[in-house]
């Protein structure tokens, strides 16, 4: 097996992942593109492990570790995405401009309205869930 085949496939897969991270708007699609990039790295690790005939099998063991880290990453990432969706009602990454310098400025009045509504929604959502949750909380206390 020529090593140039797997490393070229891996390089192309990585650049497809780069395009996906930069071009997609939905946060879940961004997470999928990150998974593509991680898989490109995995393919590289396996190919070089086979090429170098490592006695400790560091390439394949590191591939297993990267798979585990990807599982942890996608779990946490989806939890964050769901928390964002719960408070903002959207997961479009270019509409989440709360940390932008001109977020409260002139350009997006609707975004500002969204921001105001976000807090209301947060409070309402927290309240409406809080009624359910506070029952549990009071029962717990």
């Amino acid at each position, binding site marked *: 097996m020529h*090593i140039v085949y797997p490393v070229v496939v891996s390089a192309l897969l990585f650049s497809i992942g780069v395009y996906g991270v930069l071009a997609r708007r939905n946060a879940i*699609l961004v997470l999928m*593109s990150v998974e593509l990039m991680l*898989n490109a790295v*995995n393919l590289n690790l396996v190919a070089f*492990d086979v090429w170098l005939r490592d006695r*400790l*099998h560091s390439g394949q063991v590191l*591939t297993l*570790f990267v798979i585990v880290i990807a599982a942890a990453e996608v779990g946490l990432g989806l939890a964050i995405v769901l928390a964002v969706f719960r408070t903002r009602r959207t997961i479009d990454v270019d509409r989440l401009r709360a940390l932008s310098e001109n977020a409260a400025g002139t350009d997006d009045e609707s975004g500002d309205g969204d921001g105001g509504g976000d807090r209301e929604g947060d409070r309402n959502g927290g309240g409406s869930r809080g009624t359910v949750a506070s029952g549990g909380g009071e029962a717990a206390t």
Partner: protein
Amino acid sequence: MTSQAQPGLWPPSGPEIVFLLLGVVALGSALLVVTTRRLVHAALWLVVCFGALAGCYLVLTAEFVAWVQVLIYVGAIVVLLLFGIMLTRAPIGRSADLDSGNRWAAAVVGVATAGVLVSVVVSGFHTAYTPLEPGQGAAGTLGSSVFRTWVLPFEVLSVLLLSALIGAIALSRTDIGGRE
């Protein structure tokens, strides 16, 4: 690892043809993941891409990694992503605004990354060749390697996975608020 009787780059041998076909399937489905207009189809094309990559690992004699790939990526991560799509109430059908406005800049960056990486790895590894020997990545060899040499990173990784799961639970429960 250059052997004396190293075959040329062309024509490819039988395993290399299989690997290249699987690589074409993986690259095509990855391209569909990042360009399709339907959110659920993106997750399903991701299954095809990961399956083809598992086939690539099998051709590269890394059989244990291939089955772990099928179990964890196809079985767990894609299902998790589908749950995420479902819970964020994404539209099932065709949606027009999945790509952001800087799509052409992203395409330029992606093509530039591909050009740089492919030219570097081709110029660096065009003579690298190794004959494939089955059994290099069997579960027994890999398991003894994990539990002899790599046992400390393995344990650290299990603690990391546990903390990530606890963090995901704490993030997604709504009745655990911050400090008032």
